[in-house]
Each structure stands twice: as C-alpha cells, then as structure tokens.
C-alpha cells in the first residue's frame, strides 16, 4: 500500500513520516546517532555510498535543506549533482520527461523538492526499481527529513518523547514541516502535541491528525517542554489571512517573556529560515533555550541515516576512509 516501504516493511523511499511504525522511526534516529560521531571527527567521510550518484532535484529554492543533503551525500562518499529547476523556464517539459532524462544518467537517488503536494510520491511511483526518492519538501504535504532531524534534536535534549508536551506555533495551514512533525512525534509516542495559530492559519480538521488546537499562545505554551516556531512567509500578509506583522507578532510571536508559562527547561526550535521579529524574537532565537543551530547540524546525520537506509546499506560499522 505504502509506496515508500518494501515488502519487508523497510524504507525504499522516504516520502512522509505518516504511517511509519515507532521502531522504524526510532531506527532512523539511532542510525543518525551513529553518524553524528563521524561528523564530529576531523576526517568526516565514510565510504558507504562510494560510486553512487545522488541528484538533488530542487524545483523550489532552498539553501539549508539542499546544502545539508549535499553534505550528507558527500560524507557518505557519493557523487552529488545539484539540479535547480526554474519551472518558469522549463514549461512544456513534463516532470516525467525530466525525471527520465536524469534517471538515464544512472542516478541511484533523487532528493526532490517541489511546490506541489504529492510530487515526491509521484516521482517515487515513476522511478525505475532500485532508484530511491527522498522527499525534501512537497507543497504543504510533507518534509520528513526535517521532522526527523527535529525529533533527533528533541531526543538529544530531552532523552525521549514520553510525557513530552510539544507545541507547534504559527502557519500550520501551509506547513509541510508541521504535518511531518505531527506524524513523526505522534509515532514516537509524544505525550501531548499542540498546534497554536489563528484560525486563518489552521487547516480544517487538523485535530484529526492527533493534535490539540489552541488559538491563544499563552494557553498553548503552558507547561510545554518543546516550542517549535514555524516560518511565516511574508506573502501571507498580502491576502486576507493576516492583518500584518505587528499584530501577528503581538499575539503569536515567541519571546522570552511569553515562554514564562512553559516548562522552565523548555527548548525553542525553528526549521528556518527565521523571520526575526515576526514569528520569533531575536533574543530568544539566539538565547540559551534555542537549539536552532543544533537542528541544522543534526540535519546532516539524519539525512545520512535516511540515505543509507533507503539503499539498504547497513551503517552499523561505519569505517573511516583512509
């Protein structure tokens, strides 16, 4: 049924965190843990993907996601090709044609980001057998490696998910990150998941994904252990979704004082890029509670983990290259 799992329940692609069993989610984190040692060393390479070709296929611009995927692939000794597609200049060529052309270059893995929900799944259904697809973000649907690096960061700081209260604040409606986090954290057994936003930034029936819905930031942050601010794109201010940045920040912007309600040791996260003074105050983003830069670092290990898992490579004893 699920296109991302093989008949043994192992990852063949990584498209979404939805429907993954807790053991598999935990294994991604454990595998990432084994790679994080590699990253800290002076020689940061292992030969697990030597001779393999990874194509970063980005239909939307991205800095940190693309570069961390690239770094992850290079630390696994893969050959990496970055393809940025400006959809305004490629009109006429279908996605399928483009994918087949790139596949003809003997790629082993595609890392795909696209503005349409379901695009990664579409690629996964059409690639040749043995070629893996990693979803680097599709529309509003999913950004599973981001969610897993967030889970990794939380586990490192909090030890586990049991009894944890996690609040996701901001533009839930248009957020693939929020959806993937909700599925991942629920799958890992988080104690309580909350979303906090004005109604215009909440998709309908979001509670059906297993979250408590809050309109009020103060109530939503009460006793939480983890606060995740989502990026609010400035163009959302243009239409009738929100009146403006000032009112948004007053009611939903994260500040040190608003975190007064939260658990004293609550950590603050953000998937980036940050709009300082819109969804989060600079003092908080750069302060001691913030683990935002850890998230970026952890992104490399998590992506290395997923890259080896979808190719069925055992990373148990990573050897350093000589």
């Amino acid at each position, binding site marked *: 049924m699920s*296109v991302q799992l093989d008949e043994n329940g192992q990852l063949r692609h990584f498209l979404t965190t*939805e429907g993954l069993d807790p053991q598999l989610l935990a294994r991604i984190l454990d595998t990432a843990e084994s790679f994080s040692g590699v990253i800290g060393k002076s020689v940061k390479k292992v030969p697990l993907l030597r001779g393999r070709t990874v194509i970063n296929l980005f239909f939307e611009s991205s800095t940190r996601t693309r570069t961390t995927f690239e770094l992850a692939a290079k630390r696994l000794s893969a050959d990496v090709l970055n393809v940025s597609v400006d959809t305004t200049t490629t009109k006429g060529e*279908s*996605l*399928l044609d483009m994918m087949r052309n790139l596949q003809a270059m003997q790629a082993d893995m595609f890392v795909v980001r*696209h503005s*349409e*929900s*379901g*695009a990664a*799944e*579409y690629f996964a259904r059409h690639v040749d057998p043995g070629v893996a697809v990693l979803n680097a973000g*599709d*529309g*509003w*649907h*999913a950004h599973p490696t981001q969610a897993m690096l967030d889970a990794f960061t939380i586990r490192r700081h909090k030890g586990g998910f049991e009894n944890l209260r996690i609040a996701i604040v901001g533009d839930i409606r248009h957020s*693939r990150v929020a*959806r993937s986090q909700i599925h991942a954290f629920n799958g890992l057994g988080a104690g309580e998941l909350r979303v906090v936003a004005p109604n215009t930034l909440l*998709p*309908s*029936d*979001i509670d*059906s*994904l297993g979250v408590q819905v809050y309109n009020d930031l103060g109530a939503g942050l009460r006793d939480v252990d983890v606060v995740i601010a989502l990026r609010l794109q400035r163009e959302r201010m243009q239409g009738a979704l929100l009146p403006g940045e000032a009112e948004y920040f007053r009611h939903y912007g994260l500040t040190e004082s608003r975190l007064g309600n939260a658990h004293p040791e609550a950590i603050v996260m953000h998937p980036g890029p940050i709009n300082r003074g819109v969804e989060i105050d600079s003092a908080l983003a750069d302060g001691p509670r913030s683990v935002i830069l850890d998230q970026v670092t952890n992104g490399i290990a998590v992506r290395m983990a997923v890259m080896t898992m979808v190719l069925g490579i055992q990373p148990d004893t990573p050897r350093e290259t000589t």
Partner: protein
Amino acid sequence: MSRILIRNGRLIDPADDLDTIGDVAIGDGRIIRLGGDIDDFTPDRVIDAEGQWVIPGLVDLCARLREPGATRKADIASEARAAAAGGITTLVMPPDTDPVIDTPSVVELIHHRAESAAGARVVPLGALTRGLAGEALPGMAGLAAAGCPAVSDGGQPVTDALVLRRALDYAATFALPGLLTPVEPTLAGGCLNEGATATRLGLPGIPAAAETAALGRQLAVAGATGARVHFGRLSSAEGVRALTHALGDNRKLSADVAIHQLFLTDQDAMDYDPRFHLNPPLRDIIDREALRQAFADGVLRIICSDHQPHDADAKEGPFASTAPGASGIDTLLPLLLRLVEDEVLPLRKALAAATIEPARLLGLEGGRLAEGAAADIAVVDPADPWFCRPDTLQSRGKNSPFLGWEFSARVRHTLVEGRLVHSIDRS
C-alpha cells in the same frame, strides 16, 4: 429503415411503470407495438432478448464530448459510439466547447458530426451568456430554433447577479430552462473536499460553502424570474438541504448529481491518484449518504455521468496540477444498476433518473418505451459480468475512477431511432 422485432425481453419503463415480459416491434424509427406476443409483424431482423432487459436508452444530462476544441481528448464520433455501447442513446453536451455553443452555426456543426457518427444522439445546450463570459446574451431564440432545448452556464457560473437574472428571464421567454452550476469560484480554488483528507494530503480544500453560497444566490435570482432552473452536479449535504428548503417555495426547480458522487468519497484520493481529482470534488461519506437519501426522498431526480474524457497527459503529474474530471459514459448504466444491487434505489427510480427525468426537463422525446415513441432502446444482459479496464472502456477518455471494478450487466444492443447502433453477440 429496417423493421426490428425484440422478442421475449423483460420490458422495463419507469415512465409508465412498465415491467413485463414481452415483445417490441419497431419500424420507421418508432415503437409500433409494445408488449405481449407480437406475431403479426414481419421484421427484417429479430433480436432474441430472452433473459434480458429492454429499457429506454439512457439520456445523459451532462457529457463533455471535447468537440469542437479539444479533440486530442475525445471527439463527437468516439464518444457518441462509446455512449451507444454503454446503453446511452442521448448525450446532452454543455456549451463550454471552443468555440462556445452560442451561435446556431456551432449547433449545426455538432449535429452534422453526430449524424455521421451513427451513435447516440447528441443534444447541444446553448450558452447562457455570450462566450460564457457572463456579460451579454447570446441569440437564444436562434439557438432554440437550431435545436438547443435549454441554455447552460457550462460550468462557468455567472457571477454578476443582474446578468444572471436577465439571462434567465430572457431564456424563459423562449421556454428554455436555465441550467446552472452552483459553484462560487472564489471559494472553489482548491482541488479536494475541505476536510481531514485534504489537510492530511496538504491540498487546498473546497468547502461545501462553495456550493451553498452560489446556490443561495442563484436560488434567490431564480425565484425573482420565475424561470425553470436546474442545478447541475450537487455534491454536498448542505447543498441538498438548501435545495430541499427551496423546493418548498418553488416547484420549477430541480437538480442532478454526477453518479460518481453516489459511490466515491474524498478518501479515495488518499494516495494522490489523479483519477479522483474531480470538480466539484469528491466529498465526505456524510455528503455521499445525503445525496443518496435525496434520491430516495425525491429531492434529487436526475443522475448524469458528468463525462469528462481526458488524454493521458492531462492526468499525469502531482494531483493539483492534473485536469479535474472523470470519464463516465461507459459506467453510467452499470453504476445505476449497482445502486439497485446495493439497495440504494429501486430499479424504477434508478432508471428514471437517467431516462424520463432528464428527458422531461429538456422536453426531449426519448427516455421512454411507448407505442409511437422514438425507438431509443437498450437491450441489457443483467448477468454478463465485465471488468472496468482501460481496454474495456469504449470512450477515448480512460480516466475512470472505477478502473478495477467489476460490473454485472453488459449492453447487448442499442437502438437509436430504430437503428441498431451497437450490437454484440452473446459470448
């Protein structure tokens, strides 16, 4: 014109509450005799219908044939013949072709193509506004004279209430019903029912309010004109409620539903399969049940295929970027019979919804079995199962959401105006 005798069939006609075993004698394109043992008629051809059902050919109130304008998807010849193979003898096509059906010359072109196709009859609807632009009136009297039995917004709702009122008023002058699409475009920018499934998939939703907001406005305008108004493709429980309420005040109203809405829900789109990208969107199971109940209650009386054949490329890609719509003429009759098998509707009501009811709305003469009536007839084997697959679909559009389904009945013969336009041997 040949004389045909259909022998020993189960004659079913909801228009006359007919359900009996007997013969049908056909000559000069008409039904000469109906029922009983006919032995004083010399036919050129005898169709043995023992064990088979003889029903009025279906009248499909909404079928896009893609001609003129989009013949890479389908054309009048391909779809008129496919319809005949599916037991449909009249295809009513909305005016949103290219060029739009807003002048008699386009009507004539369509009639000409349909005649040479030798399949189902094709009935073009005139445009409610010129070019369907929602601004000015087309020559409706001329369209009526050319053979358009009604005018339609062609799925592009008129947003200017004054233009809508005048168009309906003018249409009523020539006794033309106005067929409207209850969709408020500003609320309908998404691609799936607004709800848990769309949220899960990260797709923009279309709320039921897109239907009720338009319905409320169109009902108010219709009430002010006294025109005969029909609403096409209702999709929501809220829409049914609004219509039920309005029917209490204004009996010159009616509405239809696309048959896939009686079987599928938004959950069928769970893995982004573009075959389930439809417009109006598939909705919740609550909506599906409300639509089914509305037929049982008589609030809804017409079922159409909402046939929208597409080429493969149009349905290729991530969900939102694919073209909405489903190919439906092959599955209209099988699904109507499935409603009967599933005990949603009695056979009489299910058949009436795609025969006499749409024929009455448009004042067409088909849709019934009666002596003197046009011989538009389907002979159906109720126990000849087949699988719905791209190669078993006769339409050029293979974009059916029912691929993989098994259906119990197969159309053996179809007659249009007494002419055998489809016939398969017993296998």
